[in-house]
């Protein structure tokens, strides 16, 4: 498990990114940028493996919550794989409080299961 800080990237308007222990890179572009509260929106995820190739066929789930408030997201977002290799669409994400949020992405792929944790401050 790897903890990654929020990295607002200047290129490709990547809103969030992290890398797992085995080197899977996760880049997230949000339809709502900068990410804010009280608006339901989608995220576009691009996953590449440690060699830089698109990670296809992965099963992804996402949960989130506020560690300081002991509650989760107000919605149940779902991730579906898209036609373009290594891309996934997450629909139905919404944050309902300002403060520190933590997103946990579980990636089930051909050689195992990994989680990536992303902190974000709203």
């Amino acid at each position, binding site marked *: 498990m790897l903890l990654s800080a929020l990295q607002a990237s200047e290129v490709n308007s990547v809103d969030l990114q992290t890398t797992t222990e085995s080197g899977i890179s996760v880049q997230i572009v949000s339809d709502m940028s900068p990410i804010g*509260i009280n608006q*339901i929106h989608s995220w576009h995820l691009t996953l590449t493996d440690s060699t830089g190739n698109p990670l296809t066929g992965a099963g992804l789930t996402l949960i989130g919550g506020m560690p300081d408030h002991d509650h989760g997201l107000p919605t*149940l977002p779902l991730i579906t794989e898209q036609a373009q290799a290594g891309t996934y669409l997450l*629909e139905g994400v919404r944050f309902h409080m*300002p403060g520190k949020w933590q997103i946990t992405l579980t990636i089930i792929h051909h050689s195992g299961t990994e989680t990536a944790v992303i902190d974000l401050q709203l």
Partner: protein
Amino acid sequence: MRKLGITGLMLAVAIVFFWNFIALPAPRDWSAEQLELIRSLSIEQLPPLPSDTSNRVADIEASAELGQQLYFDTRLSGNRAVACATCHKPELMFTDALELAVGTGIGLRNTPSLVGIAYSPWYYWDGRKDSQWAQALAPLETSHEHASDRLQIVRLLNSDTGYQRRYAEVFGDLPAIPVSPISASPLGSNEQQEAWNSLEQTQQQAISWAFANVGKALAAYQRKLMPGSTRFDAYTEALTQSDEVVANAMLTPSEIAGLRLFIGEAQCISCHNGPLLTNHEFHNTGVLSIADQLPSMGRYDGIRIARNDPFNCLGEFSDAIPSACVELRFARDDNSLVGAQKTPTLRNISMTAPYMHGGQLATLADVLEHYNEAPLSMLSHNEAKPLALRPVQLRQLEAFLRTLTAPLATEEKWLLPPAN
């Protein structure tokens, strides 16, 4: 000994006096983080009202005009004495000052304000409706609210040349309806349901479509009801211009101290956030159940009702494509929602007493005392934790809350029954 006793007593009196009445000096400046939080509450941050794709006439003027006429029309009730405006009174920020609404009978819930509510993805205290138009339909067919039904309402429109014309302008011609039965609905009494079942399916469809359109026009009207700029907003604007002198003329030191508590120690901003001071979400805050009612299951039941509602975003009467119904498709429904009620806006809160889903708390002071104590919830758990604020701090919070009231940003003509 006697002298010590008197000194001790005086000291005790001084401590009690200090605890209740003396505020600590507040820091002079806001931090960058605090300023960002304060600005996030400003009405300047309110985005344009998002379209409602489930209602294709939501932003059509003629639709809002039809909706306004329907909104104030008492003929939309079984006893011809109840209109939407009976409970949602314009002069009280579209509430009624009652604990429980009174329509054709005594209702089950406190009347929420309609101001700015078009921004919410969910309606009713328990979120049982996922659009403003679907919400507007339910009271019409509820026995203790309007006590009417869809057939009677479509018949009324058919019998009134003004309604015929206005309806046709927005939706096309009204459907022809049978001479009998007089009253029919798939909801309501056994007689109403039997009468409904006696109709041809095509008639049922046409009547339900016209009924749904009544809701869509009512929603188009209610989308006009927008909050105005308050003293708090003027304060925020002055802060944004870095004009502390002007800012401090807008709010009193006590109100500013209340704002500091609101975004900080009192944690009100956790749920009462954004420019409408609500996150439009559902929370269990340990509010006592309503007298003579079982504790409400709240959003836990509400989301299940919304999913089964034929008038929801995914239903046949919706104008949305299914993929657009994101709130309904991705809504949570787990046990954490037991006893959770919707966070209301705090805009105009000083004019919308009594408070909570059953009007259980009469005054703002009662509400603040409730959150200060954070009592155990009757169902599930209270998400709020005790605040242990001093009485003087609660008064500061109340002073701040009273800065959130202002005349609506809505044109005057929408606040009165239409002239025809």
